[in-house]
């Protein structure tokens, strides 16, 4: 049985990442747990945590995740520890996730929505509260991630990663260092060498940041102003990309991209001419979280799986692969200094202080979308 979907890109990423970090893919073994892994077909890589008690449900779990967003052996390890088969499907955007679950849960047990979609799905009554008693590993989470505005007290979601938008750029072609949104949003300096994320909401909010506003205080009048700025800037922009700006940067199609720090960090391992910066005006934070959708067929397995992903060792292995900033303090402590002190993964606190989480604003989203359609049609 195929246990997870693996794409070519994912393989390429993982290989190069492991090479870059100098971590062996297999052969990490913690204690005499080899016996547990006999069903997983991966005898050298024993489960990173103790055996998980059976939940009484059939040993199956449907996990709906982003691409390149899980550890090399995490699913096999979980199977080794709990005997539960994890069937992972992939989505590319939060909207895809939302659209798929909107008409009813087609059978997923664990999903990974971002912070604003947690709010959205709670409003739409699409995710269920978590039973913290079944997730003791919540103790591993950095306390600053527990009481967050989008989910106070972590009632519905457990933080999986966090990330921040910024500028990924090619060092040899971009001088000086683009420490402001200006070269991207309001200048012809890098004509035809810019690519922006094609997420209307993110773009409008970041333009708002550039104009000195909070990402959550934009008004219809601001949208008008920003729309005009975007139309003015459009001739200098080469493409609007779908969360694959890092590929455009590596392939040399463009020299500046609007992207997430984790995506750029993954590529910096392959190409040392690439760097990432959060502009001085501040930026937008995101956090991807683990949630259980309403109508999940295996809720107990889902809790056990979420608890497993928050385990220190399991979290370390995930982080080694995906290189995103982790909110898991115990896992972070196990990581090498090259990760902990990486200024791309963990940007300076002074800059982070200027970044905000975007709130879910149902009134603004259609306005963003229509304005962006106008920008693209202009």
């Amino acid at each position: 049985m195929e246990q997870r979907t693996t794409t070519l890109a994912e393989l390429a990423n993982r290989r190069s990442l492991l090479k870059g970090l100098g971590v062996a893919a297999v052969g990490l073994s913690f204690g005499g747990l080899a016996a547990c892994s006999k069903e997983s077909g991966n005898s050298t890589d024993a489960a990173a945590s103790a055996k998980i008690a059976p939940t009484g449900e059939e040993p199956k779990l449907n996990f709906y995740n982003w691409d390149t967003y899980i550890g090399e052996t995490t699913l096999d390890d979980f199977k080794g520890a709990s005997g539960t088969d994890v069937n992972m499907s992939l989505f590319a955007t939060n909207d895809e996730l939302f659209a798929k679950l909107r008409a009813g849960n087609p059978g997923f047990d664990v999903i990974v929505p971002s912070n604003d979609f947690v709010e959205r799905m709670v409003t739409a009554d699409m995710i269920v509260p978590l039973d913290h008693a079944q997730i003791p590993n919540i103790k591993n989470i950095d306390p600053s991630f527990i009481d967050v505005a989008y989910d106070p007290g972590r009632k519905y979601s457990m933080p999986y990663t966090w990330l921040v938008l910024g500028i990924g750029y090619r060092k040899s072609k971009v001088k000086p260092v683009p420490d402001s949104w200006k070269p991207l949003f309001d200048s012809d300096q890098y004509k035809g060498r810019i690519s922006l994320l094609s997420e209307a909401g993110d773009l409008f909010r970041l333009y708002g940041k550039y104009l000195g506003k909070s990402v959550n205080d934009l008004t219809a009048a601001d949208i008008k102003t920003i729309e005009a700025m975007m139309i003015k800037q459009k001739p200098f922009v080469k493409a609007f990309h779908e969360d694959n700006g890092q590929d455009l940067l590596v392939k040399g199609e463009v020299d500046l991209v609007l992207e997430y720090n984790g995506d750029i960090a993954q590529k910096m391992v392959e190409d040392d001419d690439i760097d990432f910066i959060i502009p001085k005006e501040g930026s937008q934070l995101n956090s991807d979280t683990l949630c259980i959708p309403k109508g999940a067929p295996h809720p107990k397995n889902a809790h056990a799986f979420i608890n497993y992903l928050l385990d220190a060792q399991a979290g370390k292995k995930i982080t080694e692969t995906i290189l995103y900033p982790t909110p898991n303090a115990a896992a972070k402590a196990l990581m090498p200094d090259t990760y902990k002190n990486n200024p791309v993964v963990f940007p300076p606190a002074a800059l982070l202080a200027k970044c905000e989480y975007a709130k879910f604003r149902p009134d603004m989203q259609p306005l963003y979308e229509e304005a962006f359609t106008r920008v693209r049609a202009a």
Partner: protein
Amino acid sequence: MQDWKRQPGFFAGIAAAPVTWLILFFIVPLGIVWAYSFGRNTGLTSIDISGTFANYARALEPLYLEIFLKSVAVAALTTLICLIVGFPVAMAIAFAAPRWKPWLLLLVMLPFWTNLLIRTYALLSVLGTRGFVNQSLEWLWNHVGWLMTAIGLAEPGPFEPLPLLYNNFAVIFGLVYVHLPFMVLPLYAALDRLDKSLIEASLDLGAGHWKTITRIVAPLAAPGIISGLIITFVPALGSYLTPDLMGGTDSQMIANVIERQFKRANDWPFGAALSFMLMYATFILIALQALRNKKIEARS
């Protein structure tokens, strides 16, 4: 001879499965989408089908109408290029030696064996700034540049890669590449059935090759040409992947806007109305074609 249509039991037995399938998985879902197009969002996940025409009114606003017209223009240009490129190809296959025909047809159909997404990614690496085309050109530039000085011209400057990707040219190129087989196959079917002695007669009676093609071959192959045009134009009009992956900042087509309504904007009623606008246009095209066929039949 007995007409098999006179055996209703047998006919119903054969038709039951596909008809049920079509109704359950095509007509019913389409009907639901059609009903959505007369509704409005009442919450994040709930739609009230109130019979409103507001979505259609919005779809007819200049903004969306312009995008719609642009998509028609892109699809029409794609179809035209496919016809110009595909006609000689179909002619060549139709007039090739019989033992070659199956192989040539196989070559035309071969791309269908690869997924559209993979073919598009292949095109991306062919046309990119550091793609195969630009790399080859750069090599030529650097190795043949001395010729220019040799014949007394100024030394060429450094190589500037051609902007082949992320613009409207790339979208048209990608669409032609994808839709060419749709044009070649019906053209071939029409040309292959052509009575070749008519062509010989035309040439014998003094018409040149060009005149023979425009006056004899093209009119006789007209039904094939028209089905080729429709079968190319309709999917090109609704194409979504190619403009999304290969297009620039202003290459959005109507299908991209529809996709955004269903996903990012979470406005299914409006997305449904836009989809049905596209479908009405397609229906009209096909109805016109059917009418034309009827007229031809009536005449003969």
